[in-house]
């Protein structure tokens, strides 16, 4: 394959537009990153066993805290989820989900509120499928950490996510928040 070299003048105060690349460049970069993430995930698991989950969880949590700093603080779970959906964007597109027999999306259990989230578009899932790795592995803990970090930042309460089911087109997760916990 012939590689096209970009030649031009570079001044310290500007980045030449042509270095931004085109769709093919982005696709190549995305595939390399996916492969890199996949092999990093399996290497982490090989070296640190279940500790890999904790490492990725912590990385996700940091991302969640960082992203949520831009969001308005609220104690309304629905509003917080809407804002988190906007920040996560189309690459982690999720919606609230409930079984047909349930009236509302949220259920209260003592001081805990539970909501089921259906993640439809997910870069993590695509990365795992690109590299032939099983779902529910360490990389899935990235979203776990992200949601927990974002919830903690926006609502100032403790949250946790459990993976209910994973599939090739969507994954169902349960977000539990504890009002009294911090």
């Amino acid at each position, binding site marked *: 394959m012939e590689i096209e070299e970009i030649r031009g003048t570079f001044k310290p105060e500007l980045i030449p537009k042509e270095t931004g690349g085109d769709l093919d460049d982005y*696709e190549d970069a995305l595939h390399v990153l996916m492969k890199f993430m996949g092999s990093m995930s399996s290497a982490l698991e090989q070296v640190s066993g279940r500790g890999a989950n904790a490492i990725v969880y912590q990385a996700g949590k940091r991302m969640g805290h960082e992203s949520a700093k831009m969001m308005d603080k609220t104690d309304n779970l629905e509003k917080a989820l809407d804002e988190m959906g906007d920040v996560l964007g189309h*690459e982690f597109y999720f919606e609230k989900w409930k079984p*047909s027999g349930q009236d509302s999306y949220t259920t209260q259990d003592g001081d805990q509120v539970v909501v089921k989230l259906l993640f439809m578009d997910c870069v993590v899932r695509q990365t795992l*499928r690109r590299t032939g790795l099983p779902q529910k592995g360490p990389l899935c803990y990235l979203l776990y950490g992200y949601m927990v970090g974002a919830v903690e930042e926006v609502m100032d309460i403790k949250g946790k996510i459990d993976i209910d089911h994973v*599939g*090739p087109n*969507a994954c169902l997760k349960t977000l539990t928040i504890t009002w009294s916990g911090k």
Partner: protein
Amino acid sequence: MVNIEIDEDACVGCGSCVEDCPNDVYEMDETKNKTKVVKVEDCMACLSCHEICPAQAMEHQDIHVAKRLYIDRKVNYELDRII
């Protein structure tokens, strides 16, 4: 709303979809020994059933189809040319 079509000629009656579905959308029709859809309203279109079905006997209509950015467009282009 999701609509699920089962190709009864293709279904081998293994019951894999019944066991795999987390929301009990499918049930075995004991008389026909084929799977049948009983709770379509609980289908979240995860498509685990598609992955496990050995006969690819089901079709989900009107669902959100997740992006598949892992598909290599260059490879697809070459495959299209060959096929």
